[in-house]
Structure formats: structure tokens, C-alpha cells
């Protein structure tokens, strides 16, 4: 039966582990006896809670616990995978999963490259990123009070017709055991608040959303001025009610931290994912060591930035996470990779494997991605010689076609820049372009780079990410 997940009576394991180590070790040994060159069992237990309040009333509150486990087996140079919420059944799936891998391998032509994995340190340990205030101890009433603080300031105008505030927290506990002897357990938390503010003025209706949070516990929410978060959202919503449609065309663009982050995530981060490069689905294939951007552009992906929404101590193949420098002064220096792609390209593994949860296998993913700061002091300096352009801020998300190298991202609000000054507010601004062109058109960055609002990234699986950077100027961007 798939559903019986927990090995103990309660929700949490009494020993600190969900996996029965001796049984799992036996299963991994069995996989090797059957001819597997590598086998792993990765379990993820997520204790989470979400709260939604609409116009100061509790709409829903959902506490939950999920436990999923994935068995991944490499045999004859191909992968077989089995995922389940039923831990107990896992050892019984070894033979069928080995068969699955072999069936995949049998369909490959001799010319096809077999999967093999780069060597990595074999570690047995536990790492727990303990938050200052364990978010699991926060009761529903307290969460509602925090959300009401946003609500009260966000709703403070008769043109605001609704405010929906959300809370989300999760405690993630992962255990990984491999046939190579890796045996790691790690845990951390994420906490997030958000609000969507809807305004109406006559027939005009607009909405604006805001988020705050990251890796960590309740302290992240306590540190935030929630009243200001609501104020800012209300003011932006009211501004959007009066905003004009964006001009269209190729014009200079200044992007705030949020948009700079989404831009670099979409335009560069995804094409840098080595699984897409290996699949022939990236415009950055063969570009390592090439100059692909202006020399002022340096980009890192760093899961070790504590507090970033994409932070995590260990990747989902058991490697200690570390900073990856994707572009150094305009030169493409590194792909994000996992063990399979590191071996494929003959490069050093850099711990880029992430899985959505215990029921998904790891893919190459970003974490906290940001452009490093430049030399401009502030936005005024970036703007002063722009005769006609757009300042865009706040992200509504983005998308990329990694193969073609084209991308799009949308701003929550914007201003027209005329003669070096912000003039009229704009709405529905989106920016598109080609990765290999627009990185060269970045011609100004302020000094202060940092992560912006938390986000989510979809690639078949959804994972939390942090993006950011300084305020950025692009000399010519396709704005619509």
C-alpha cells in the first residue's frame, strides 16, 4: 500500500532517522549484486504549513507532513528510478528497478554514451542548519497576527478591494544513502509571507503581489517590517491604477534588484544548466571560456548564502554545496552540474543537483543566483544619460527557451524615463531578448548586490530559488 509512509507511530522518527539503515544498506548491496554500478536511496520528509487570509479572515490553514523516497539505480550505464511514499516497500523494488535501468540501456546504440558519475568525496555525517526560531513552534494565531499586520496596511484605501495574505513554512529533512557508502542527513527550514493586493478604480482593476522570506525560521518573518511590506504593496497597486501601457520597442532599460535577478536566472542561469547543455538544448553549448557578456558582468550561483530562498547545505547527490562562478568579467567560466554531467563534460562536480521532494529525482538546478555589483553609485547615476527609457521593477516571473537562447520576463510596475528622470508610471512591461546578445548590452551596475524577493523555479519540478543583484542598466532591450 503506497500510503503507509512513516515507520514509527508519530510523525517524527524517534532515532532522528526515517530510513532503517541496515535494511537500506542491504537493499543497496542487493542492487550491486544484481549488477548495478551505483544505487542510492534518498528520503525527504517535509513538515509544512500554509495559511491564507483573505480580507483579514482566515481562508484556509493546512498543516501537513509528506514523506517520499526515491530509489535511483545505475546499471549498464542507464538509470532506473522508483519513487514512493511507502518506505517499507522500497527494498522490494530493487530487482524491478535494476531491470528498468537495463531495459533503457538495452535500447541504446553502441555509439550512445553510457551514463557514469564523477567521483565525489564519500561522507557520513549529519548537518542541521538550525534556525534561530524553529518555525514549527509557531502557532496558527501568531501566523494570523503577522499576516494581519500586512493586511492592515495593504488595505488602507477605499480603492483596495481585496488583500490576500499567505504564510508558508517548511522543515525539510533529507537522508541519503548510496552504494558508495555515502550516508548523510541534513535539514533546514524555509519561511515565507506573501500578499496579493487588488485595486479597482471604475472599470480599471489591477493587482500587485509581494513576498518576503527565505531559508530560516520565524526570525525571518520577525525581522521584516510587515506593515511597510503592506504599505508598499498598497502604494504600488494604487499607482498601477493610474499607470499607462508601456511603450514598445528597443529602448534602454533599468531593472531593479528583483528584475535583475529574474533576468539573470532566465537569460543565463538556465542555459548554464549542464543537463540542458548535454542534451543539446542550450545556447551556451561550447561556450565555456568564451566572452559572452560585457566585462562588468560577473554572475554567481551560491546555495551557501544563508537566508536566501535557494539556500541548502548539501545537494541532492550528497555533495557539500558551494559557490559557482558562472560568468567572470563577461567570460563563461562554469556550468551548473551534477555528477552525471560533470563526468560527461570532464569537469569538477559543483553540487548543482536538486530535487523537488522525496518523490523526484535530482536535476541540475540553480539556487541563489545573482549578478555581482558594479561601479555605479546609485540609480540616478545609471539613469542620468538616458533620454528615453524604462525603469522596471518587481517581478511577475519569466521564461526561457534555452536552446534558442531567447527569454522573457515581466515586471510588476515600471516608470518611463525621460531626460534622465522618472516621469510617468507604466504597467504590463515585459522584456525579451537573446541571451548571447543582451549580456553584452548590460552597461551599468550599481555597487550593492544582494538577493531580492524569494521565487520559485519550474523545470518539470518546482524548487525555491533566490535571485538578485544590483540595479542594472541594459543599453537596448526589447520592451513590450
Amino acid at each position, binding site marked *: 500500500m503506497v500510503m503507509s509512509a512513516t515507520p514509527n507511530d508519530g510523525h517524527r522518527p524517534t532515532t532522528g532517522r526515517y530510513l532503517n539503515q541496515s535494511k537500506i544498506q542491504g537493499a543497496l548491496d542487493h542492487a550491486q549484486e544484481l549488477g548495478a554500478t551505483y544505487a542510492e536511496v534518498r528520503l525527504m520528509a517535509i513538515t509544512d504549513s500554509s495559511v491564507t487570509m483573505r480580507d483579514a479572515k482566515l481562508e484556509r490553514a493546512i498543516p501537513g507532513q509528506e514523506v517520499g523516497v526515491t530509489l535511483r539505480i545505475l546499471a549498464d550505464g542507464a538509470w*532506473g528510478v522508483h519513487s514512493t511514499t511507502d518506505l517499507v516497500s522500497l527494498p522490494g523494488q530493487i530487482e524491478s528497478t535494476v531491470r528498468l535501468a537495463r531495459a533503457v540501456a538495452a*535500447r541504446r546504440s553502441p555509439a550512445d554514451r553510457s551514463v557514469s558519475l564523477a567521483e565525489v568525496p564519500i561522507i557520513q555525517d549529519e548537518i542541521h542548519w538550525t534556525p534561530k526560531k524553529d518555525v514549527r513552534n509557531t502557532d496558527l*494565531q501568531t501566523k494570523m497576527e503577522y499576516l494581519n499586520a500586512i493586511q492592515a496596511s495593504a488595505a488602507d484605501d477605499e480603492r483596495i478591494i*481585496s488583500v490576500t495574505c499567505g504564510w508558508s513554512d517548511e522543515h525539510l529533512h533529507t537522508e541519503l544513502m548510496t552504494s558508495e557508502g555515502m550516508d548523510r542527513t541534513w535539514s533546514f527550514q524555509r519561511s515565507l509571507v506573501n500578499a496579493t493586493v487588488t485595486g479597482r478604480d471604475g472599470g480599471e482593476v*489591477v493587482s500587485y503581489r509581494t513576498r518576503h522570506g527565505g531559508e530560516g525560521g520565524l526570525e525571518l518573518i520577525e525581522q521584516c517590517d510587515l506593515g511597510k511590506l503592506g504599505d508598499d504593496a498598497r502604494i504600488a497597486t494604487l499607482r498601477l491604477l493610474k499607470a499607462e501601457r508601456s511603450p*514598445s520597442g528597443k529602448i534602454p532599460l533599468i531593472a531593479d534588484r528583483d528584475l535583475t535577478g529574474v533576468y539573470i536566472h532566465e537569460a543565463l542561469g538556465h542555459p548554464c544548466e549542464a543537463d540542458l547543455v548535454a542534451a*543539446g538544448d542550450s*545556447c551556451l553549448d561550447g561556450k565555456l571560456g568564451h566572452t559572452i557578456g560585457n566585462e562588468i558582468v560577473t554572475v554567481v550561483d551560491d546555495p551557501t548564502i544563508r537566508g536566501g530562498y535557494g539556500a541548502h547545505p548539501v545537494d541532492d547527490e550528497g555533495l557539500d554545496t558551494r559557490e559557482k562562478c558562472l560568468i567572470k568579467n563577461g567570460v563563461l567560466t562554469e556550468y551548473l552540474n551534477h555528477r552525471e554531467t560533470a563526468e560527461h563534460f570532464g569537469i569538477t562536480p559543483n553540487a548543482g543537483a536538486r530535487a523537488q521532494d522525496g518523490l523526484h529525482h535530482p536535476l541540475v538546478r540553480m539556487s541563489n543566483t545573482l549578478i555581482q555589483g558594479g561601479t555605479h553609485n546609485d540609480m540616478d547615476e545609471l539613469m542620468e544619460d538616458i533620454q528615453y527609457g524604462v525603469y522596471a521593477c518587481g517581478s511577475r516571473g519569466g*521564461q526561457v527557451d534555452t536552446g534558442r537562447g*531567447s527569454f522573457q520576463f515581466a515586471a510588476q510596475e515600471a516608470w518611463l524615463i525621460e531626460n534622465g528622470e522618472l516621469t510617468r508610471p507604466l504597467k504590463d512591461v515585459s522584456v525579451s531578448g537573446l541571451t548571447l546578445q543582451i549580456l553584452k548590452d548590460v552597461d551599468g551596475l550599481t555597487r550593492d548586490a544582494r538577493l531580492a524577493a524569494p521565487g520559485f523555479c519550474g523545470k518539470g519540478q518546482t524548487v525555491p530559488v533566490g535571485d538578485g543583484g544590483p540595479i542594472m542598466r541594459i543599453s537596448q532591450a526589447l520592451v513590450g
Partner: protein
Amino acid sequence: MNVLPDDAVDRIAEGCRTIGQLCSAQGVQQWEVVATQSYGHSIDIEAGKISLAAGGGEGGYGIRVVEDGRFGYAYLVDLGSAQSAIEQARAIAKASPSIENFVLPSQQAAKEVAGLCDKSILSIGPEDLLEQADAILHEVSSLDKRATVVGGGLGVGASASALLSSEGIESSGITTSHGVGVQVSIDADGEMTSSYEGDSGRKKLAQVPECVSMAVDWAQKTRGPIEVSSNAHDAPVLMTSEGFSPLFSMVVPTAVRGDRLARNESFWSGKQGEVVLADDLTLIDDGRLEGGKAAGARDGEGVPTRRQTLVEAGRLVGSLWSTRDAAQQVAEGRIEHAESNGCAVRGGHQSPPHTGCSDLLMSSSKGGSSQEALLERMDDGYIVHSVMGAHTANPTSGDFSVTTSTILRVEAGQILGPVKQAGLSGNLAKALAHDVHLGDSVRVQGSYSSGSMHLPDVLLMQGLRVNPA
């Protein structure tokens, strides 16, 4: 080999009964237990070859309690923790606002919907899927030796579900699914083009579904971009069903939710009975569509589903309601009367029911036209087959600003050739309000909301701005 164990339904129904008995023993006023259990097989394709084969299953239970008009929810995977989950749900209910006249739906007879379970899918095993993957890869290279499936995959699934409530609702069933998606690229002569296409349904798909040749076709026909004026301009756009559906599904299903209409959060708020779409257009949400992706005898809270006209001859005549939303909007005085019309949807056992659409169909009383006829009507304009960033469209206003790399320039009713990239912006509600012409081939598309979209190609003569790169 069966995808789903023979006793799957019986076992989750038994689990629901166990939890229901615990609720009754605790004195819960009203309770509802749902359970899902899904199994499947899937194949990933990368770089023109099968990269991985996977299988597995997952499931769980969700408990909704309602006491004095207040509701609470919790979910679990292990029946052993049902007691604490019920206690959590009751504690949440105590903190929730009491909604006058909000009670769980009572038992009503519901007729089954055909085509939701294809028994032939239940016997599809990993080897069958591997053969299908081989056939797809072979087909792509036969259609164009330069073409490669750089990403995508295929999968089959079967899901058992059950719902049991204190009000006498007891239902269960099995649904199946089969899906294929391929990202086909042609990387030759210094130019890379690509196209993603997919097919899915409750029935077993053809060994090589039509989406495969369509992906190759669009990767081919977007090669060799022509030069066009780079000035942004308003232009008619023929959006293929594939290009139109992501925008449509972001904007329209939200706009017809009863709670959003009542709260003035929809661009169609206050327009009940008024013309909101071109006057030949009809929009139907069909919760009983044979083989529909979101169809079923009952909705997510056990209310019998129905086929519901939302827009008729351009006029807004209906809206979607679930039990709680209806009671809440009436209790808060935003609307005089509302009741559930079988439009509660769920994202699985982990979420309580909320209002949403199932399978949405758009048609025209004028019928559909061939692509040639639509192009003749368009005269000068563009064909757009896919867009990037549809999820950034604003469902509150209907405004969108997206990008496309699968766009063809049309002049004097003839396709001139592809444009490398262009921005596309406008307001979908306004663009659909006048001078809209539909194609004659309705295709089923996926949706950002629940269910699916049954849409033909759509020619929008007004309200769109094209911004070629």
C-alpha cells in the same frame, strides 16, 4: 502487469471509512474524507535518446471538518496519524470565521461520466513505454534527419480516488492518463530552432501521437527568419490553439469564478447578463465531458457535476461556485443568492476544495473556418504558435505581455516566413470582445488551471500589439 493494484479503490475507501469513524467518535459535526492513490510509469528523453525510466506511486488522505460554519483541513499519508490530523483540523476550524449556512454538501444522485478510465492503460508496462519512446524517436528522425528530441518524455498513470462524508456521500473510482511531450530541435547551418508539443488524455494515445509531427513541423517552419520592420504595431494575430490556450487558461477561468465576480476581482465583475465576448462566442465549462481531464460524476466535494454555459452568444450568463464560496459571498452580502453548481476542484488530497473550472470549451455560432479562410480575412498580420511567459499574464486585468519565437509573418493572406522573435501584448478580455474568428479544428490543450481547454485556432483582429525583435 497492472499499473494500479486490483484492490486500490477498496483499500482507500476502507481508509476513508476508518477516518470517518474516528471523526464520528470524536463528535465532529460534519466531516469529509478524500483519498487518492496514484501509480505510474514514465520515460525521460534527452539528447535524442531515452535517458531514464521511472515508476512509482504516491497517495494520501485529506480531512475537512465543518463545525458551526467553520472549516478546518489537514492531510496525512499514514492512517496511524489520523487522530492527530482530525484534532489539527478541528483546531483550525475553531480559528476560522463562521460562515452562515455553510454546511457540507448533502448526498445527491450522480451519473457516471464515460471515458475516464481506459483499461488498456492499466496494462501498459515500462517495456511498452520504452517501445513507444523508440517509435517517437524514430518518427522524428524519419520526418527530418536534422531533428532531435532534446527533451521531453512520456508516461502513463492510474489514480484511484475515494470520497466519504458525514452527509452520506460515498464515491470512488479510477481514472487513467497517458501523455507525451517532446521538445524537438533542429540545429543546423548555424541556426537552432525548436518546438515543444504535447498530447495527453484519459485514453491510450496513438503510438506516435500527432504532437510529434507538429513539433518537427514548427521547428522546420520557423527556420530562416525573414526581415520585418522592427516597429511595434497593432496587427491581427491568428493564434493557433497551442499558442492561445496558455494565455486563455491564465486569464479566463479565473474571471468566471463566482467568488471573484462577487468580490469585484474579475474584469467581468458587474457584467452578468452583459455582452463580454464577441456576440457569436459561447463558453462552456463541462464537468461531464466524456473523457474530460477534469470530468467526473461528482466535483471535488461530492456535488454532482454538470455542463454549464458561462457565456452564450457573447453574454455572460453563468459563473462557477463551490459550496463554501457560495455560502460566504451570500453571508457577506455581496450577492443575494448563490449555491454550488458542482465546480469544486482539488489539487489532490493535500488541498481542500476550491472553486475552479473543469474542461472549458469555446465555440462560435458562425462555425469554424479553415486556416486559409482565416488568413484571407486577416490579410496582413501574424500567426503565433507558442508564447513564452503566459504565466506572467495578469488574471485580474486580462493584460499580458509575452514573447514568441514561433511566429510567422502574413501579408495579403499568404505566409511570408518566420520572424525570429517578437513581443506580443494586449488585453485578452478586450481582444476577445470584438471581431474574433475561430478555426475549424478544435484541439485539446493543457491548462494552468484544472482540467483542459478545448480550443480551435483563434483569429484576433483587434487589440494585439506585435513588437518584432
